[in-house]
């Protein structure tokens, strides 16, 4: 598997050029630009020139000491956990159901297609729809609860902090579990089928198979789902904004919404917004690194080390010859 012909190495570089160039132009340049703004006094609409601050980290200190920003970080974490844990559990459960050989679920294809569908509709439509569903004093959810006798009087859901957070988390969960499920199923299909066969012959139950064989081998894909979901979760923006504009009483004010408000709600604090997004970037990097570390494949690390050693030795031998 590993001797892929040294002569062809240059194609590895050539085929990566489009990606690298596009990244440099469309992502790296703007990223550096933001980082720079974070150290300047650029604020106010129509300003064209900016100066670097004498205390370069002033904006960062201001943002870190900003109570609303701190609160928004907590809110982001809470809403993310509320959406991510059920999301990953449900998509794992569905993955198990749809890939197990024990139950032959009929209409599987149709279910897979349907469950992904919430992802097709725009976030704006969904947020507005949910806002009306939970309307007060009259709205479909209130009508339903009263009909079943669960409520005596209409509840003002939009004023309940935890309900609002729950709805935002639910929307996020519901829009993305189908997507995670499709990726996870792809991961399971990549596992060598003989492993399952062997386990079945040994008399393992499907629960055992799932936890002992499927899950450990799903690590890479799970990591991918975790990281993309975490990044998505930390950037959660349009659902909280469109559902209740971050309310009630900042209960759904996420960090991204905070950053948006810094730049757009009237004072044009671009420098602080830039500093806040760099802080967000650092947080994402740290959390992602932690995830990588937690889920790193210890065997693989060893394997790679051994590989490097082998190549070095081979080279040395080559030099000798």
């Amino acid at each position, binding site marked *: 598997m590993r001797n892929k012909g040294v002569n062809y190495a240059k194609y590895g570089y050539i085929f990566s050029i489009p990606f690298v160039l596009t990244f440099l132009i469309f992502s790296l340049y703007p990223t550096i630009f933001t980082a720079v703004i974070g150290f300047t006094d650029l604020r*106010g609409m129509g300003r064209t020139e900016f100066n670097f601050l004498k205390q370069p980290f002033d904006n960062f200190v201001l943002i870190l000491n900003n109570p609303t920003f701190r609160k928004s970080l907590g809110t982001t974490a809470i809403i993310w956990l509320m959406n991510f844990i059920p999301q990953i559990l449900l998509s794992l459960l569905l993955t198990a159901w749809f890939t197990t050989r024990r139950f032959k679920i009929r209409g599987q294809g149709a279910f897979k297609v349907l469950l992904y569908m919430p992802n097709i509709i725009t976030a704006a439509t969904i947020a507005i729809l949910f806002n009306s569903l939970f309307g*007060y004093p009259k709205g479909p959810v209130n009508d339903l609860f009263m009909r079943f006798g669960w409520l005596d009087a209409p509840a003002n859901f939009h004023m309940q902090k935890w309900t609002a957070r729950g709805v935002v988390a639910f929307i996020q969960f519901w829009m993305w579990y189908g997507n995670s499920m499709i990726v996870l199923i792809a991961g399971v299909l990549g596992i060598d089928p003989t492993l399952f066969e062997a386990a079945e012959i040994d008399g393992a139950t499907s629960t055992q198979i799932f936890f002992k064989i499927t899950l450990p081998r799903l690590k890479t894909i799970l990591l991918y789902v975790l990281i993309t979901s975490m990044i998505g979760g930390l950037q959660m923006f349009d659902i909280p904004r469109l559902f209740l504009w971050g309310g009630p009483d900042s209960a759904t004010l996420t960090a991204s919404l905070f950053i948006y408000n810094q730049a757009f709600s*009237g004072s044009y604090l671009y420098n602080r917004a830039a500093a806040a997004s760099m802080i967000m970037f650092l947080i994402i990097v740290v959390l992602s690194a932690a995830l990588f570390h937690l889920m790193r494949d210890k065997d693989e690390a060893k394997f790679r080390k051994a590989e490097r050693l082998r190549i070095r030795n081979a080279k040395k031998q080559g030099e000798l010859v």
Partner: protein
Amino acid sequence: MKRNMRIVVSFLLIACMSFSLFAAGQTEAAKAPARKVINLWSFTDEVPKMIDKYKELNPNWDYDVNVTIIATTDGAYQPALDAALAAGGANAPDIYTAESAFVLKYTQGDASHFAAPYKSLGIDVAKKLKEADIAPYTVEIGTNTKGDLVGLGYQATGGAFIYRRSIAKDVWGTDDPAVIKTKVGPGWDKFFQAAEDLRKKNYAIISGDGDIWHAIEGASAKGWIVDDKLFIDPDREMFIDVAKTMLEKGYHNDTRDWTDAWFADMKDAGAKKVFGFFGPAWLINYVMAGNSGGTKPGEGTYGDWAVCEPPVGFFWGGTWLITNDKSPVKDAVGDFIEWVTLDSSETGLQYYWANGTLNGPGGTKDTVASGTVMKKSDGTLPFLGGQDMFDVFVPAGAFASGRNKTQYDETINTYWRDQVRSYSAGNKSRAAAIAEFKQQVADNLAIAVK
């Protein structure tokens, strides 16, 4: 897989700042002679449609108008407009419009240096203002800090109290606006007395706390910012107590404006029948008539409404037209702007607008900024049981004031109303709500709070 890419835009304005650095040289080069193109930026197609009418009336005005419409609902209009203004060059807007929620930014605030005084467009401002008898608050808002007029609107959005005739008869034995205005005003004490009278007969005086807010906001002596600091006007502070009292006493149905329940109250579909709404003429045309559950008197609540003076004066909404100071076609722009904002003749825009004849007969009637036009127009509406709404809305424009507005109003109002709701719902104490409000203003806008 990149979720929520829209956040990207959060930073566009940063972008806008900086590209003007690079575009600086471009502006000079763009002054090509005798350009026959006008760039118009707006957030609805109202003003662009006026261009069509103007061209029809003035065939000699042969400019091509490039129209850019960006809706305000997604928060994209201002960033894009700011970017285009800062960039300058041949594609810069010549005319742009601003809505009352953010117009001050473009006439007196951070973006006011882009605006050209109307007098530089070849308009005899003082004479025309007098001739057309323009509602003073629209002039106040459109005047920059140097005292030059830079923006004017075509609508007048002075507010009235729009109430139900049948409920008025049931409670006070009459539906005459001259009598009802003495029941609900002047002043809030009388208004709450009326609320109590209505409550005894199981009516709600208004639909939710949002209805009363526009009136309270508009009537306060000072705005949110005084000497670069947050200032809570006593009138506005009173709102927190009023909102709580009204909720506790059941004076309203506790709806939120622009939600289903609020619209439903316009046709008696709520918990209690609602007596009235605060609003300008457009609220009747755009919102209430359609939501009344009928299209002619006798159906739903249609025809069972009347308007009277509100307990305090206020205005709500409106569109202002502004010209770019760097526009190379100022004279042509000036001709159009004068026709829209200051022409009080029967071929002026406002006459068509007031009588609903801009796109042929039978359109929606509306109040306009020019008192002169109002005098020769007819505001009779079957929705109001045949009342001439201009009788009430024209004086209402005179009550309104633009002096208590700031460019931060949209944001600060949101924070304030959110905290007021939390307090009246019993989620926190009054002091905690006010403290949190100040904290939000300080954290998000970097405005000193004390």
